[in-house]
């Protein structure tokens, strides 16, 4: 073979080839001898191919080169190095990278479990507050004092709803 397969984990020539069906999908992993040893492929009792497959599928094929997370400064190369993202907003920034990964990794690609209703309610209120505060400074700048007074009252109402109930 002119082009020998490379190890999925370290890119050395692969000598160990595994195929397994997980969740009714065929998965293939190619490893060099050192990685196969290190991952305990030779010891079936402590070894999970599924685990390894996930790590191998973390090597992104899609490209978001040059993109940098506005919030935390994370890049695609950082993901290749760490296998973890920088902050929650990275999932938005690196969408093209994440989406193709999920299908092999999970049961489905959309969340169907628990929803943090309380936290989401608070977020809606925070967003509303930010908007009202902008309205207020606009109103003051353009000397619409009646509008400003109304907006200020509304802000106070929202603030009361937002205050976390630390003492229950």
């Amino acid at each position, binding site marked *: 073979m002119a082009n020998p397969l490379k190890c999925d984990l370290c890119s050395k020539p692969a000598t160990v080839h595994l195929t397994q069906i997980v969740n009714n999908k065929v998965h293939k992993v190619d490893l060099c001898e050192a990685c196969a040893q290190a991952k305990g492929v030779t010891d079936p009792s402590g070894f*999970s191919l599924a685990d390894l497959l996930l790590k191998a599928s973390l090597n992104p094929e899609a490209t978001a080169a040059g993109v940098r997370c506005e919030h935390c400064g994370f890049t695609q190369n950082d993901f290749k190095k760490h296998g973890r993202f920088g902050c929650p907003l990275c999932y938005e920034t690196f969408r093209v990278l994440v989406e193709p990964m999920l299908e092999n990794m999970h049961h489905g690609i959309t969340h169907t479990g628990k929803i943090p209703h309380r936290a989401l309610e608070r977020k809606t209120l925070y967003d509303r507050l930010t908007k009202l505060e902008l309205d207020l400074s606009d109103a003051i700048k353009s000397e619409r004092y009646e509008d400003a007074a109304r907006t200020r009252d509304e802000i106070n109402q929202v603030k009361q709803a937002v205050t976390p109930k630390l003492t229950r």
Partner: protein
Amino acid sequence: MTISSLIDSPSELTDSTSSKSAIVLMTRVRLARNLTGFSFPGWAKPGQREEILATCRTAVTATPQMKRCFNVGIGELSELEKQILVERHLISRELSGAKAGAGVVISKDQAFSVMMNEEDHLRIQVLRSGFQLKKAWNAINDFDSTLEEHLDFAFSPALGYLTACPTNLGTAMRASAMMHLPALVISNQMEKVVRAVNQLGMVVRGLFGEGSDASGSIFQISNQTTLGESEEGIIKRLGSVLQSIIEHEVNARQKLLEADAGKLLDKVGRAYGILQNSHLLSSGEAMNLLSLIRLGIDLGAFSDSYRSMIDRLFIEAQPGHLQHTQKSEIEPGKRDVLRAARLRSEFANFVRPDFNFTLNGNN
């Protein structure tokens, strides 16, 4: 609370075992949560890590579940203390090696624990003895909802709870059971079981998680995937996988007894003899002997009342716990002497096996 009083308190893991825990020693459910507006722990700057830790600590310690708790920064613990918490499944190896700005809060009964700034901002865990997946899920669901009153969790409607590693997205839940499967090991069926369980999207690991060996024939079985399925769905699917492993183990025990009862009982009897009389025991060997005694209890050769003692010794025979009782670090060779002495005294009054139990009774 100090670590010594934590260790001396009755705990879910070591003091609540009943015959219901015959094959499933304990059940655990873990949730990963992150705060909005902060980088994940591995990417956050030191100052930000401290801020995250402080915010999480305040919220966690204010919950009723943590009314009496052990609350500590990872830097305040000695190597030995960290090892003890790992051996009790209260912190991960990753947290025990974490840099500054990481910590843990553990409830007095050790049923609830929260790691802060491990891979995610919060790793919440509920531990229950025996096969209690649903109870563990209900307990952690309530606890999580209480935390949500005070903390803004990073969440996306499409991807669910956002976690540092995409493999945990969605429910960010890992449910697992620690199973004692000596007959499947003795009859060389574990490899087959691991393969079958993997095909069902579940993972098999050794006693202490990733990469650890399965000494004492104890395995952890957990869900692999977290996205695309509800928490209840995952719990239900894992539950049925566990149920079928239990059936296989029970069948394997029955077959071993039918095929050659003498061979199996010989193992149990010898384990008893060695535990009463040996002077050198490595932790691996001790685990395997204790495992055989536990099998003997399940079979009816020893009284049921000894089960919780064995489960306690599974933990106390570990290197960290052994050194803790001596209040100092001890080199491995001397530990084996100490471990054997400890087990000799524990087994000195352990009632002799009665091998005349009915072989047709249920395990």
